[in-house]
């Protein structure tokens, strides 16, 4: 049996980060209570934007995004609404797809992650029994243990956050990212090199892993370019997903996926759910999100004094502006809103009057569990790509629907339930129904 010493920190990484959040602007000019500040890394999905006037919201209650930039005529706001909606969906599709591609590519090529080599201590019951009933019972028990561990961790985190033990949380997160960025990367690199039979000496290996890990720690926990931070978050989600795929037994993995989406639903939507409490506490305190637990797809626009600056529209990723740091608390959050645009040289009349950030944030736990589902579909099932692709499309559609609901309800939403449900349905039906049909068709060369 393999045990992980600091696994609790990985659990940390995967449990709360299970929902969508929308980015907020750092300048606290929001007019609504609770629509200000920054979401923490919990399962809060809010389609909030820099709201500076409420009147615009009242006019268009069914808009995707409440845009309230002063000086912008209402027609222009509405015109931009849907474009933002679709753009944000794509801004989340891309990282989710990238994470899944990394996981599937690794699973299909590196045999280490599909070999059975022990189990986590969180899933102590083995599935090696011949009887189906016993196996099912063992997987349900494994799931109960795993989910209770996750619930305990989440409640512990909420308690710590409520009593402002920020240093403890910060230390916990740093420990878990250290482990992911150094230990798991080292193991992953070792296995990839073994698979392709490439030799690497220890000094080079040390240098590579050290650079990768150190830059990752800096980017995630401190300051760094947004793209680099996003890339590191995708990589650590993929590494975590690979660990789960390797160490969770077959049936337990599927039952755990189902159970965690139910837990996510309950924890985010119930009034006394831990994640909801965490979100509300963070909103009351107007504090930024925990670092390293949320993926932000921030885009920044700079609006000039009198007119909209057309050249600043779109995703401008600029290096972090250190001036904004002082408006944040002791976390010194880099992950949120990290990009600001200095006044453009070509527009002398404009001033940096208002920064507006619109983006969606997705918890890392969502990335991890989506990738676990697709990776498991790629690992089991006799080399069948159809199942993997079907799960992939199902998860993307689920994400799309969740974002649509986010635009409609404008509050924190769990990102796991719809996608995981679709993913599970499509996995089992494609594996058992579609695969024999398509295989028979392909062998007879019939086309439908």
């Amino acid at each position, binding site marked *: 049996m393999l045990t992980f010493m600091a696994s609790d920190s990985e659990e940390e990484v995967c449990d709360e980060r299970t929902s969508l959040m929308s980015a907020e602007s750092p300048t606290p000019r929001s007019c609504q209570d609770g629509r200000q500040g920054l979401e923490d890394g919990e399962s809060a999905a809010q389609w909030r934007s820099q709201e500076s006037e409420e009147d615009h919201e009242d006019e268009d209650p*069914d*808009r*995707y995004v409440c845009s309230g930039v002063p000086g912008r005529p209402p*027609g222009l706001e*509405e*015109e931009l*609404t*849907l*474009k933002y909606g*679709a*753009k944000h*969906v*794509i801004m989340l*599709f891309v990282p989710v797809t990238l994470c899944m591609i990394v996981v599937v590519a690794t699973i299909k090529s590196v045999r280490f992650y599909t070999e059975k080599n022990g189990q986590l201590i969180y899933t102590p019951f083995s599935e090696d029994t011949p009887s189906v009933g016993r196996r099912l019972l063992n997987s349900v028990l494994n799931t109960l243990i795993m989910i209770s561990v996750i619930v305990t961790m989440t409640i512990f985190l909420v308690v710590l956050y409520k009593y402002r033990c920020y240093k403890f949380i910060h230390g916990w997160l740093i420990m878990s990212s250290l482990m992911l960025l150094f230990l798991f990367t080292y193991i992953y690199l070792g296995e990839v090199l073994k698979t392709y039979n490439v030799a690497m000496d220890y000094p080079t290996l040390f240098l590579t892993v050290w650079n990768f890990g150190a830059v990752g720690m800096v980017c995630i926990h401190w300051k760094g370019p947004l793209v680099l931070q996003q890339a590191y978050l995708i990589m650590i989600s993929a590494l975590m997903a690979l660990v789960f795929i390797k160490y969770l037994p077959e049936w337990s993995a599927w039952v755990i996926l189902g159970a965690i989406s139910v837990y996510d639903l309950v924890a985010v939507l119930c009034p006394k759910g831990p994640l909801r409490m965490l979100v509300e506490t963070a909103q009351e305190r107007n504090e930024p999100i925990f670092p390293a637990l949320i993926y932000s797809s921030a885009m920044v626009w700079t609006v000039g004094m009198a007119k909209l600056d057309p050249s600043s529209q779109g995703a401008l990723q600029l290096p972090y502006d250190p001036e904004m740091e002082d408006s944040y608390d002791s976390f010194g959050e880099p992950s949120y809103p990290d990009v600001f645009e200095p006044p453009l040289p070509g527009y002398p009349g404009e001033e940096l009057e208002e920064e507006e950030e619109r983006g969606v944030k997705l918890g890392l736990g969502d990335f991890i569990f989506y990738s676990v589902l697709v990776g498991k579909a790629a690992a089991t099932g006799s*080399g*069948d*790509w*159809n199942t993997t*692709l*079907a799960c992939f*499309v*199902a998860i*993307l*559609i689920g994400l*799309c629907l969740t974002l649509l609901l986010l635009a409609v309800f404008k509050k924190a939403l769990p990102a796991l339930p719809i996608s995981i449900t679709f993913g599970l349905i*499509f996995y089992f*039906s*494609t594996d*058992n*129904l*579609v695969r*024999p*049909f*398509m*295989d*028979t*068709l*392909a062998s*007879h*060369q*019939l*086309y*439908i």
Partner: protein
Amino acid sequence: MTAAVFFGCAFIAFGPALALYIFTISTEPLRIIFLIVGAFFWLVSLLFSSLIWFMTTTLTDNKDEPREKYLLIFGVLISVLIQEMFRFAYYKLLKKASEGLKTINPYEEAPSMRLLAYVSGLGFGIMSGIFSFVNTLSDSLGPGTVGIHGDPPQFFLNSAFMTLVITLLHVFWGIVFFDGCAKKKWYTLLVVVLSHLLVSALTFISPHYGLNLVLAYIIMVLTGVWAFFVSGGSCRSLKLCLLCQDKDFLLFNQRAR
């Protein structure tokens, strides 16, 4: 089989679809979403048709070969009908979505129905092509010799070309189908269904690759021409486009100066 076969067949089968995606779809986020939803609809239609086929094969569970072949043919025909039903369902969904988009923001141009017809056809085509061919493609990377027992050795090439033709046909069928639905010309729908059935039925004579492929390509060219005229093209506009005298090209050239 070699990497050359793998890459060659992959680009034959998916090259045009990839090019269409890169140049027309990937620039606009809304189109990407509609493409993926179209792919999803095709997937669901495949699910239902596999379910029906699976039920029929498990219910009539005897192992004689002809019976299995007949059931497979039945499965293919049912699948074609279900795919076209789902294409109609997607049309209905897109019409509602279009109206919804217009009410939400009347200032912004929602994509036109013709564009959505193209995007949905491409979604269906890409998903259909991928599902038909990707397993064969991944097998072509592994060891083995095709045709060692007397089967034709051009298995992969034939599959690749067939996949290409099906993908492009779905694009054209989508355009024609949506136009028929919009203008309430129900005979168009019937023609699309019949041509789809014909193309699938042609694959039943699979050992005779030449006939099968040539007829499928002829049908594709005819459907393509029909789709071109349906979506508003004409001989004159085609001539202007080819001679680089069309309006867009001229405007683009002026802007560059």
